[in-house]
């Protein structure tokens, strides 16, 4: 099957190209079907990969030599092993469900062709990023995702604020992109290769420069933090909710924001050589998950709350990576993709049912009118809250919290993680109760859901509840398929033993239930009009936006304005352009003296010129 690997990123790419070039000839309703068909081909190809050995041994295909300089070359080469198979399955299958949901969700919209082109292109970019066998191609996919993310956040660009949100996302992630590019340059300068296999091979060799490796690891961490919206670059994700809910589901929950997790998991041998940076990954994740959990608790915008919860859940993945539990981080990535895509898409349906109202304080009691929506949202909330035993989130998140206890300064990491677990459960059920229960506080319209919306939600709801059963907690006499399957590539995650393990697991089970109790208290307050959403420091995400605005954005704008006035107006426009204009004008005035309409002079000049030319050719040569 190696020869058919190109089909996986190729099918969505072909779909995007077809829609971009020929989409104008299709009816708007057909555009979505073409896009979904392209992803279907891709999803089937991914299914075939599971059938054909499931990434072991790793499959390779080199399509084209992209750059060749001397003895160095970068190729468009694809590689699929078990780790990347997890990611491409998420991207292709969740992507397919989201395309399906879009068919009727986006039917009443403008710009469908643009939407589907970028959605398909995004999936292609994600797959290229995941399957790339060298860092250059990986970076291409990384940037393609960033571009599509920008274009889709600003999908409703006629609203100036939404266009601004897209620009903000693009500019903030660009900081991380630049860091990743620098990391790639450093690696190339040090090892003279960009092939991931060769790089990881070189890392196991002797005489490594610890300073360079630390720098590279820190830069990659910054790049991953930018893409995955971790502190300190988390500010773009809540604003990215300006895009359609399907875009939030695909890009800002299931796939692109987990790219940073994949990148670190893929390069984990590098991080293991610099344990300090690896621990920093865990700390970034732990701090982020508490920060975002607190912020999510105080949001009254349904989508912003889920966005902060995404930041928080990716914090858990970073924590898992940082304590060496790479397999568990990927497991949480997969389950998170299912329940978060589910939550975003059902949130989109909720918002449509309230005619575009995002404020959960003006919702309530939707459960009676939309029983199906309530059921799937409940499934997603159970998984997000990691309710013990029933939901997939429990099986993927609790082991990470346990593993955190084994790391250096494990008490700190574990404490943050368990606080985050309480918060997660609290904000998940706060949203669920505010939207679907209680007395109606806003006008909901009848919003019939087509089968193409019900089916993806149903599939994801089932996955959110049952996906966890492939991987039970350590020491349980039940299968551990996931970590066993990934062990050859990522090793086994650290585990606790004895009485400590029992205590940690009990604490992990109690935390979500405590969160639910907290949610009940919060919802009562919120309904009475004195909710946490009035706490400014939480609702604004710790004033992070205002801080960046004061420290970075305003000084930069002031600098730009100063440069415009001093350098551009005076030096460039005044001195350089002005002198050019003056010279040209003067020369033209001199020449125009000869053009005074005196015919005899014209004739004389012609004769003179002729004599000079003929004379030159007769005597000077």
């Amino acid at each position, binding site marked *: 099957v190696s020869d058919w690997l190109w089909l996986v990123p190729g099918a969505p790419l072909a779909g995007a190209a077809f829609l971009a070039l020929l989409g104008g000839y299709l009816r708007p309703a057909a555009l979505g079907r073409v896009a979904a068909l392209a992803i279907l081909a891709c999803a089937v190809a991914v299914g075939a990969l599971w059938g054909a050995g499931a990434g072991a041994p790793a499959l390779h295909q080199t399509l084209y030599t992209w750059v060749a300089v001397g003895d160095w070359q970068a190729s468009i080469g694809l590689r699929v092993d078990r780790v990347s198979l997890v990611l491409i399955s998420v991207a292709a299958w969740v992507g397919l469900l989201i395309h399906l949901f879009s068919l009727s969700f986006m039917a009443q919209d403008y710009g469908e062709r643009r939407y589907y082109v970028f959605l398909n292109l995004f999936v292609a970019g994600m797959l290229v990023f995941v399957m790339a066998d060298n860092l250059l191609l990986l970076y291409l996919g990384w940037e393609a995702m960033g571009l599509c993310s920008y274009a889709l956040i600003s999908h409703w660009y006629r609203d100036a604020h939404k266009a601004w949100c897209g620009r903000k996302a693009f500019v903030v992630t660009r900081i991380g992109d630049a860091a990743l590019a620098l990391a790639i340059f450093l690696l190339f300068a040090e090892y003279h290769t960009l092939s991931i296999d060769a790089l990881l091979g070189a890392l196991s060799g002797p005489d490594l420069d610890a300073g360079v490796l630390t720098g590279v690891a820190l830069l990659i961490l910054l790049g991953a933090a930018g893409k995955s919206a971790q502190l300190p670059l988390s500010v773009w994700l809540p604003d990215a909710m300006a895009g359609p809910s399907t875009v939030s589901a695909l890009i800002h929950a299931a796939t692109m924001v987990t790219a940073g997790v994949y990148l670190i998991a893929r390069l984990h041998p590098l991080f293991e050589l610099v344990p300090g940076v690896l621990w920093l990954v865990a700390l970034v994740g732990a701090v982020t998950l508490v920060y975002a959990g607190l912020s999510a608790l105080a949001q009254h915008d349904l989508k912003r709350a889920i966005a902060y919860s995404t930041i928080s859940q990716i914090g858990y993945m970073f924590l898992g990576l940082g304590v060496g539990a790479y397999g568990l981080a990927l497991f949480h990535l997969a389950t998170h993709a299912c329940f978060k895509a589910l939550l975003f898409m059902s949130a989109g349906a909720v918002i449509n049912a309230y005619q575009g109202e995002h404020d959960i304080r003006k919702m309530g009691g939707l459960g009676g009118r939309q029983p199906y929506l309530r059921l799937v949202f409940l499934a997603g909330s159970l998984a997000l809250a990691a309710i013990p035993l029933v939901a997939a989130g429990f099986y993927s998140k609790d082991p990470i919290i346990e593993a955190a206890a084994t790391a250096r300064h494990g008490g700190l990491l574990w404490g943050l993680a368990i606080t985050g677990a309480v918060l997660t459960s609290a904000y998940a059920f706060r949203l669920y109760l505010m939207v679907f229960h209680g007395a109606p506080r806003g006008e909901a319209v009848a919003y019939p859901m087509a089968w193409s919306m019900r089916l993806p939600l149903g599939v994801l709801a089932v996955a959110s509840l049952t996906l966890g059963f492939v991987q039970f907690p350590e020491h349980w006499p039940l299968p551990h398929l996931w970590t066993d399957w990934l062990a050859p590539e990522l090793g086994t995650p650290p585990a606790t033993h004895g009485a400590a393990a029992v205590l940690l697991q009990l604490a992990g089970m109690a935390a979500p239930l405590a969160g639910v109790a907290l949610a009940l208290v919060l919802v009562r307050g919120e309904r009475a009009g004195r909710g946490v959403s009035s706490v400014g420091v939480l609702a604004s995400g710790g004033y992070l936006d205002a801080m960046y605005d004061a420290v970075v954005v305003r000084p930069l704008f002031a600098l730009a304005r100063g440069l415009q006035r001093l350098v551009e107006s005076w030096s460039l426009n005044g001195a350089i352009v002005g002198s050019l204009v003056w010279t040209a004008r003067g020369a033209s005035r001199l020449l*125009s003296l000869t*053009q*005074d*309409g*005196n*015919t*005899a002079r014209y*004739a*004389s000049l012609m*004769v003179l010129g002729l004599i000079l030319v003929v004379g030159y050719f007769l005597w000077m040569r």
Partner: protein
Amino acid sequence: MVYEATLMVAALLFLIGLAMALLRREVLFVLMGIELMFNGAGLTAAAAGQYWQDSVGQILVLFLMTVTGAELAVALVLVYLAYRRLRVTQLGDIRTLRDAPLLAEESGP
């Protein structure tokens, strides 16, 4: 052979024609100067044909006469029109074909 003398006469004709074309003010005289220059050129062609013992030179003179005749017809019409439209017969009075930098600057931004 006496083509040196012929060439000398031709050059003289050409120079007289050139001087007329450049120095005279009357448009018709300028035209006559141009015709004289043509004759000088034609005479040179005839002399060259004589020098190379070739009939091409004489044929060229015949062509030249034809073309000159046609040119003269057009030129005379132009002189006539210049008189009728602009009421001028002096070359120096026809100054419509000139650069007007001041005007261009004023109409610019």
